[in-house]
């Protein structure tokens, strides 16, 4: 008999992370589509945002964060699908019956997704900066940090959906309706200033609102608003992670 194999949680997390990357790379259609679509929408809608921005920051400060937030939200189903597929493929039980802990499995799923959503936002902000004058430099470290927080938030919400969804249809319905509702109510697609007043009242109840305002605060130098937004997003992330972790232990 061979001596017992030794492994650490960190090593197992790396193995899970590497495998999740493999799965994402082997089926890259959806993330690539969302990235391309976000760039197309930014290009087409930027003049509209410029016209709407009669007062306050320029249109690109509304357009780039709004579209970045919207398309990371639409990618919720990519995160959920990663967990739901495990059940469809019956590999979930194999992971659970192995030596990896639930938190290791969750971390191994989350890290590549965070990287993916971060990349998606980075591409959009870089193109917006290079082509349309988005003031990325004015945001210094604040934009990357908030992009990371937002990527973690969307990842944890998507994993929570994936843990609890029982079918593809259920996941698609929850993620699509959720993403579209949040996008509309948060002012990501259309600025709150031109939406009915009640939308502004309910907007703070959506995580998209805090992401949008966090990015805007980052580039306009409103430190207090930035810190507030970052704290709310971090709290939502923690709550969603808790929901995922509880679900994954069942």
């Amino acid at each position, binding site marked *: 008999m061979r001596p*017992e194999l030794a492994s650490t949680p960190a090593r197992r997390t790396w193995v899970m992370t590497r495998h999740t990357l493999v799965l994402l790379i082997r089926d890259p259609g959806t993330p690539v589509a969302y990235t391309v679509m976000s760039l197309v929408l930014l290009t087409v809608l930027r003049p509209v945002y410029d016209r709407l921005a009669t007062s306050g920051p320029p249109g690109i400060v509304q357009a780039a964060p709004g579209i970045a937030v919207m398309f990371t939200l639409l990618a919720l189903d990519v995160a959920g699908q990663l967990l739901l597929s495990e059940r469809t493929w019956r590999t979930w039980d194999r992971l659970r019956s192995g030596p990896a802990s639930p938190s290791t499995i969750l971390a191994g799923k989350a890290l590549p997704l965070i990287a993916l959503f971060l990349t998606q936002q980075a591409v959009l902000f870089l193109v917006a900066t290079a082509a349309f004058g988005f003031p990325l430099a004015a945001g210094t470290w604040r934009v990357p940090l908030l992009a990371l927080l937002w990527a973690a938030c969307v990842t944890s919400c998507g994993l929570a959906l994936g843990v609890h969804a029982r079918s593809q249809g259920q996941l698609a319905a929850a993620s699509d309706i959720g993403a579209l509702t949040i996008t509309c109510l948060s002012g990501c697609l259309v600025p709150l200033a031109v939406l009915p007043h009640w939308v502004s009242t309910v907007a703070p109840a959506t995580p998209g609102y805090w992401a949008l305002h966090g990015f805007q605060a980052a580039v306009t130098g409103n430190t207090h608003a930035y810190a507030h937004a970052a704290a709310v997003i971090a709290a939502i992330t923690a709550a969603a992670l808790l929901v995922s972790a509880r679900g994954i232990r069942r």
Partner: protein
Amino acid sequence: MLTVSGLRKRWGPVQALNGFDLHIEPGEICGLIGHNGAGKTTFARTVAGLERPDAGSVLVAGVDLATAPRSARALIGLAPQELALYPTATLRQNLRLFGGLAGLRGTQLRTELAAVAEELILTDVLDRPIATLSGGQQRRAQAATVLLPRPRVLLLDEPTVGADPTTREALLRLVRTRADEGAAICYTTHYLPELEHLDATLAVAASGRVIARGHRADLLDGLPGEVAVTFNGPVPEHLSRPSTAPGELRFSTVDPARELAQLLRDLGPDTTRVRSATIREPSLDDLYRSLATHQLPTGAHDAA
């Protein structure tokens, strides 16, 4: 190596496990047989830590599953009945995942991965996605992911369902090898000749518990075999057994060889009238069929 005591598990009104006891020694292959609903799969899932038992204990190499679940699970390899692999990933990527989670890495992982692929005739398809493999290759691929880390306890739940002869032969050979290396193996199957091929001990499950446990010969002792004799022409009238078909005698008996010898003696000197005579010793199929009415053979002991 694996000691399961008094395992109980209830699903609503169904008592899936009702005091399931089983002990498997290192190097032993235990064939777990029983009808659908006997509790075999629930047993495997509970031992693998996928279900929490209502009562009872599971010790894996002395490690209690209840108090040290992760350590216990690290010693167990479960091959579920259904295919459970990542279809979009290649076989190599699947093997790297399951081997890596078990602690294999670097040169050791590459060496053992190549070895298990060769033993299961999968070397040529290592870099193909699982979804593109044939049914038999997928079966072997699943077994490879379980056998690669060489777990101390192997739970194989009908690993050869739907497998072609090549797949079956390769799987059985590797299972035997793992047992020879010291693994304790619980092999659930409905294909009883496989257990004879593996020289497995037997555990017979019914109604959520093991009702008979032992070596094949002990369990078969007392079960009826069969004698079949065909004649050139009608069955001689003086033979005191009813004819089952024109020109044929066929009957069950616990001692087929002695009964056939007696029948030939009764026939007298005119043995040219016998066209053929065959005996069939009791088999695992007979034992399995006897489960339908819980008629235990005389040699079996009640394990409950």
